[in-house]
């Protein structure tokens, strides 16, 4: 059954991409700078945060600009993927009522839209890496694996949220609050060391926190990712995906009527 579904998703790959790409394009329609905004946006945000944190709070971290930027890019991805993902079903009501294709396509392409946006931000990041002459090592190879984990995790979350949101529109608002809180309990603008040791353990239960820390280690600081962390991230993202699909497929048959 899983294989069949994957096969049918593969058959719809052009549609998935088309939906994701047109969603991305729509964001910059009617703006003068167009796609350029997708580069400008992270740059401006970085400037603001950098000014605030390096001057006012005097954080002592090596490559702090890159540290911040990478954290923000990864967190932005989770935020966007789940935000677009939450309304992926209800926002496409006209399509869902008039044509059929596997409904998870909408959610997958929502996450893909977020990925496209993150891709442009990554270009900025790479430019910064080059500008600061950050040494790279073989440990960089962890990065793509970490990104896959992050994508899978976001997809699993989006599947749950989008399906629940069809029945309870509150979900989208509650999720925004959770994301806001998540931004502060995840080591994005600070290092995890600011917490006492036992609190650190709790913070590290958040898979996104672990992914951001590991990504920084492998990309910026040329450090390997511990097998423990890899196992934890693999397990959590897989669990989210499976739970996501179970919830989604349980609720899917009613989408057509409820929406």
């Amino acid at each position, binding site marked *: 059954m899983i294989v069949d579904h994957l096969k049918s998703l593969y058959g719809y790959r052009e*549609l998935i991409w088309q939906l994701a790409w047109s969603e991305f394009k729509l964001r910059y329609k009617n703006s003068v700078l167009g796609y350029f905004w997708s580069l400008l946006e992270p740059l401006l945000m970085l400037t603001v945060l950098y000014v605030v944190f390096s001057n006012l709070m005097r954080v002592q971290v090596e490559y702090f600009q890159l540290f911040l930027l990478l954290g923000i890019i990864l967190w932005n991805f989770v935020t966007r993927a789940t935000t677009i993902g939450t309304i992926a079903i209800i926002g496409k009501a006209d399509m869902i009522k*008039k044509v059929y*294709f596997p409904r998870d396509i909408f959610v997958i392409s929502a996450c893909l839209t977020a990925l496209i946006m993150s891709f442009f931000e990554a270009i900025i990041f790479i430019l910064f890496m080059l500008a600061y002459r950050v040494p790279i090592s073989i440990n960089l190879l962890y990065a793509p694996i970490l990104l896959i984990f992050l994508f899978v995790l976001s997809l699993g979350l989006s599947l749950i949220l989008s399906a629940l949101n069809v029945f*309870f529109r509150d979900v989208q608002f509650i999720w925004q609050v959770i994301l806001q809180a998540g931004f502060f309990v995840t080591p994005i603008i600070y290092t995890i060391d600011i917490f006492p040791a036992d609190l650190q353990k709790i913070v590290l239960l958040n898979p996104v926190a672990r992914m951001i820390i590991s990504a920084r280690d492998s990309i910026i600081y040329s450090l390997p990712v511990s097998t423990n962390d890899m196992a934890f991230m693999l397990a959590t993202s897989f669990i989210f995906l499976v739970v996501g699909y179970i919830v989604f497929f349980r609720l899917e048959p009613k989408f057509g009527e409820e929406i």
Partner: protein
Amino acid sequence: MRVIEIEHMYKSFRIPHEKRNTLFESMTGVFKPPSYETFNALNDINFSVEEGEAIGIIGENGSGKSTLLKIIAHILNPTDGNVKINKKVTPFLELGVGFHPEMTAVENIKTYGTIMGMSKRNLKSRTDDILEFAGLEKFRDAKLKNFSSGMQVRLAFSTAIQTDPEILLMDEVLAVGDMEFQRKCLDVLNNYRKEGVTIVFVSHDLSSVRRFCDRTLLLHKGEQVAIGETGDVIDKYVYSGGEISPDVNEIEKDSSQTDDDSNESVRWGNKKVEITGVKFYDKFGNGSTRFNSFDSMKIRILYKSHQKILDPVFGIALYSENGEYLFGTNTELKKLFINYVEGEGYIDLDVDRIPMLMGKFLLTVAIHAHDQKPYDWHDKQYSFDVIPSGRDAGLFEIPCQWNYDNMVTRARD
């Protein structure tokens, strides 16, 4: 090969009395049991469709046609029963699904085409054709929001017909649009039929169903009334009398009206003989007020005579809905001499073939004496509808045929 198989399929909707759309409403409503009505949209539907067949679905509004189509399209799920679809379904339930006003014509073609299952390469090579067919070459990079609604429909339609469907689901929404557009739709449908595409066609337009569908399914309030040869099923629909047709009580209503109505302008005469009712019968002998054009019909005039009347004349006059006088005849003109009438009785007028093509028609019925003095005259008090069964246009059919003689067009020596 059977491409659609439906067995004992039921579909019911819950109609909540108050909709709980937020978590708060759900939580506060936990102790109140949710109140809802169950609406049975479809009951025990059984049929199958062979590959390459064109099947029509007819029935009045609310009979469950669109629900059935959506279940075949997999958009809704049946409450109970089996639905097996063995080929790819392309639904034309609405044109331009996924169109976005902020996107350009070309971008919308891309999105819509992909939704309809076309491959990227295919789309790329056909984009120009699509724009040309829609007559929108000049507007390829204009945003959809600047298009008139007609242009949008044309763009959607031109894109949709580029798909290669295996099973095509067509809803009556396509029937909106001008004559030219409808003709295009029917042409496309025809081409698909020739290519052997299986078609499920929902329509109110009985003449197009008659033309396109091998078999037809008749639904009435969610029940499957009949399935079979299109002609038979349409007859059943049109001539269902009191059971299925929506305007059932028209005869009774009209006749009772005239009974009570002593209004001089619609009824006059000395009432020595009274017309007590007029009934229309279809070719099966059932009472009806709807008839297919070219079918036979019988008009029965019931009378009650209060005394013995010698040599009465029964007559009818037929009017169009606008009141134009179309036809009139009476027993005298047809050389039927009735010696006398006494008590109750009836007289029948048999129409072998209804020559009217479509529309509503009004009937005047009268009994008068030989010297034109009316006993009872009901002016335009009865009506019936004619439903088209062919493609000729206008009010009446004139029996005719075209002859084309090659000799005539021979070039002059």
